[in-house]
């Protein structure tokens, strides 16, 4: 038979786990927002790597 008795200690554990979980989620969200702001504030066009040769990005040998 499963134990159903809820001790006060379980409530404290739960509050700790939920609290730490929410704090970590908030931290991740803040880091994401901060990263977006930092990267977009660099200015200029931002190009992603897309596995395709991009002549525009190649450094000319003659230069």
């Amino acid at each position: 038979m499963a134990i159903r008795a809820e001790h006060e200690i379980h409530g404290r554990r739960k509050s700790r786990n939920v609290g730490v979980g929410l704090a970590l989620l908030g931290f991740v969200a803040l880091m994401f927002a901060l990263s977006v702001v930092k990267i977009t504030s660099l200015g200029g066009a931002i190009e992603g790597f897309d596995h395709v040769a991009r002549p525009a990005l190649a450094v000319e040998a003659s230069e």
Partner: protein
Amino acid sequence: MSDATLNTQAAEGEAGFGDYFALLKPRVMSLVIFTALVGLLVAPVAVHPVVGLASILFIAIGAGASGALNMWWDADIDAIMQRTQSRPVPSGRVGAQEALAVGLALSGLAVVMLGLAANLLSAGLLAFTIFFYAVVYTMWLKRWTPQNIVIGGAAGAFPPMIGWAVATGGVSVESVLMFLLIFIWTPPHFWALALFMKSDYHEAKVPMLTVTHGRKSTRTHILAYTVLLVPVALGLGLTSVGGPVYLAAAVLMNAWFLKGAFDIWRRPEAAAEADGYAVEKSVFKFSLLYLFLHFGALLVEATLRSFGMGGW
């Protein structure tokens, strides 16, 4: 093993989230957040809201971490004093080593993240603030000199300077004066409290001015620091963050605070005891308003400036 052996006696070390939050001294943190925010907002350089929010959060976490380190080190005297007996460590809800771990981990996180979010100067100032509060004040001065409040007050005075550094990347006369405003305000604020609070610092062997030098000397100290506070508070009004609104508010509040300090200084202990320390209590309450309104007036000036008004 049967169900009957289930251990429900592990109350110690089974802290709830609120107990860990209490380690960070949330009431002190609210003052840190307010003053750091003002330091950031009155600076002449605009900060992106996300960077500003992250910076204030990490400054607050750093301040909270130093509070946790303070509770770890002071667990022995917190257990003796009635006012602090219910704190998480002396009450047994959080272990002392856990408080140390939380303090160290959050200190590192706050300093590194502030450095990444804002700049190295603000991170360095935050690291120094944590070191100053946890090591210089808590471990060294608090149990050694009755001037502990004076020098320890510096830790509480750094947040507006850090906020300013987040925005400008530097230190200037404005941020130094904001620092000095809190630094010199702290002693009369705490000593007014010490005069009417029945404290058990003596049992905890913490030297307080009221015990080591007597109550008359404490009253003189309150007046002396309040006089020193006036040029700092008015001087801040003459800088780029000040203006007519701030200066008018500062003149009124300093006149009121000076009158209160003078009343405290001139009255004999017997008279204070007779009326239940009415003057000391009212000056203590006013001192809270004093700091809030000074920084609030700086915010008003910054808001007016953004509409093309205010300032000099």
